[in-house]
């Protein structure tokens, strides 16, 4: 899922400094699961902003709403009445969510409270790690399910570099060498033949930005 992290309060405060009434919107999908922008985080951030505002001698008024998915037009349109009553919207969605709200409600400033970081998965309570770079040309069939684009510091496609050091990476000794992991995984599955092939360099234009997919009618 998409993993995001809240911006420092100071940065958010500056964004909404001039406003007296804002709507704080949460998203019930990825950012809820990674504890960044769900209903709870909306309540926490709103409370912090009210406290900070009062400290500065102002009385910021916040309203709160959380919708199932911020990247969905119909769901965002449901915020119509609340948006009418405020001067700005502070979104705790990922970048896609912020932009959807901004596009539906073009007349009002929409601000991002989160930094969208990566596509990843949980690794223990409260810890999320990046596992997918959304590169558009998935290589996982050749590496036993371990992504060298994300996990190899050099993004190599054809085995480890000369600096692989007892399973650790020479660029970042804290990191595991992705190719050592790939080797071990393929060995356990009896598929080392995959590593004996040569793969040409990646097509970095597999995803042109902004990416677009058109599916045929369902």
């Amino acid at each position, binding site marked *: 899922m998409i993993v995001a992290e809240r911006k420092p309060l100071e940065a958010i405060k500056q964004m909404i400094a001039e406003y007296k009434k804002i709507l704080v919107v949460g998203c*019930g*999908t990825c950012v*809820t*699961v990674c*504890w960044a922008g*769900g*209903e*709870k*985080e909306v*309540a926490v951030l709103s409370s912090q902003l009210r406290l900070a505002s009062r400290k500065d001698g102002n009385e910021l008024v916040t309203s709160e709403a*959380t919708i199932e998915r911020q990247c969905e037009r119909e769901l965002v349109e449901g915020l119509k009445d609340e948006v009418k009553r405020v001067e700005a919207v502070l979104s705790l969605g990922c970048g896609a969510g912020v932009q959807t709200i901004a596009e539906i409600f073009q007349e009002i400033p929409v601000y991002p409270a989160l930094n969208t970081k990566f596509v990843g998965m949980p690794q223990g*309570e409260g810890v999320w790690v990046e596992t997918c770079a959304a590169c558009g040309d998935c290589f996982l069939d050749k590496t036993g399910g371990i992504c060298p684009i994300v996990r190899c510091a050099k993004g190599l496609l054809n085995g480890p570099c000369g600096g692989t050091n007892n399973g650790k990476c020479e660029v970042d000794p804290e990191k595991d060498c992705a190719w050592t992991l790939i080797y071990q995984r393929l060995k356990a599955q009896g598929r080392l033949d995959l590593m004996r092939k040569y793969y040409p360099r990646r097509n970095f234009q597999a995803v042109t930005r902004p990416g677009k997919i058109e599916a045929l009618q369902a």
Partner: protein
Amino acid sequence: MDNSLRLGVFLCDCGNTMSKTIDFSAIKAKLERLDDIEYVAISHDLCLIKAQEAMQKDIRDRGINRVVVAACSPELHEHTFMNVLQRAGVNPHLLSMANIREQCFWTHPHKEKAAEKAMVQIVLAINRARLLEPVEKAEIPVNQDVLIVGGGIVGTEAAIELSHLNLKTTLIEKEAALGGKLNLFASLYPLQITPEEVLASKLKQVTESPNIDVLTSAELIDVRGQAGNFVARIKRGDEEFVRNFGAVILATGYDAQFASQLYGFETSTSIVTLSQLEEMLKSPAEIKKIPRNVGFITDVSDEHSRISTLSALRNALGVKEKFGSEVCILCKNLKVDGAGLEKLYHDCRNRGVIFLKFDKPPKISEEDGEIHIQVEDVLMPGEQMALSCDLLVVEEMVIPPSDSETLRSILDIGLDPQGFYQDNNIHLYPTFSNREGIFFAGNCHADLDLIRALTEASNVALSAYRLLAQGRVTIEAENVMIDPSKCRFCLTCIRACPHNAIREVQVDHEKRVAQIVDLACQGCGICTAVCPAKAIRFKDWSDDQILAELELVGAYL
């Protein structure tokens, strides 16, 4: 504000003591001015039956549906007043209490401040009362079968007890035969009965009972579900099968290990462990040379174990009986606080066993099959004694059974710092785990002699019986509740619940959400606080109730 709320406030001045400081009439007058306060009463002794009967009548007659009691601590009388509500036809969860005695009158000597604080406490309790919700009871069916893991004497005894109580058990044992450690013991001193006799008797009862299914050479590989509905996967040889149980009892015993690193030597023909000695004592005819002098050494690797002491004393007596050797026991502390241990010690003394207490561990060396010991007896400080024996018996450390980590993980229970199963509370609930419906008996969780271990077998049998006997259990229904429309199935609550009381369920034919299992829930509220989607509501301790108690901050003095 809900217009159908009719609040009744019952003030108690604790036998007229609190009215010296707090003006209850003034408080009553202030409260009666509030819109939804239907009735305010002052009593001197709400803890007495007569006053409770009056309270019950007031509640009924005036149609009161939310009750506030300002009196002593809820720790003392919450249940008393919940019963009054129940008898008055009001859901017992619609009670809010203000602790104006222990946490106000008794601890704040300044009269005016105490009175003002009491008023604030009462108003906050009223705030809370307005937000209370009824919690109904429900009956849920439970599976009445019990899984017992471990076919030693304790597990076997628990199965027998349960079968007498007409509950069916499945007894699984990883070895090929039942009996556990009793198969290895040479004696059961101070009991005069032999281990063989005990086992034969127990096995007969087990085989003859239609209620006990024994699975030897079997192991538990997975358990899902919660109390009343555990789903266990068992492996036996090549076969794997699934069975349902209402409760699980762990009776996996202990392992014994010689701490050779600590002693600085390994075992040999002349240095044996207590377990090895028991083997010798079981078949004395096979011994080539009967030892003339046998030395025992304990309390070097573990000063605290009863089992160690018991084993040393028991086998010392066994050596006397079967070999007739001279016996000397070198010990630091002789822990005789188990059943019959003091007597066993005296029996040993009477049979001529010599006891020698040391403080510093003895120096031990072996030469030509003869063991030489240099030790300082605490009764003769400064003097080194030299002893020799042809057989030295060393103690073993009592360690958790080898499968304790595996079972811990399968059952999601805790281990204590030594690796044995962690009791829910070592003093109050020693045979209970952190999970409803999972119990421990015997040495897998505590340091017990045989009599105590057997008592625990009865204990857990009764605990399982109490839970499952009726086939139905009354629970509080949905005191903690997850809203399936808000749940994102992020698994946070399932992972965070310390009692493994949250399961996944399917709603709308495809969506999975988390659901609280009422029977297993122990009401801590951790899930409620941790849910990132605010999808969990705890009726007795909701967020809005807590926030209502934060009102009026600033209205103090």
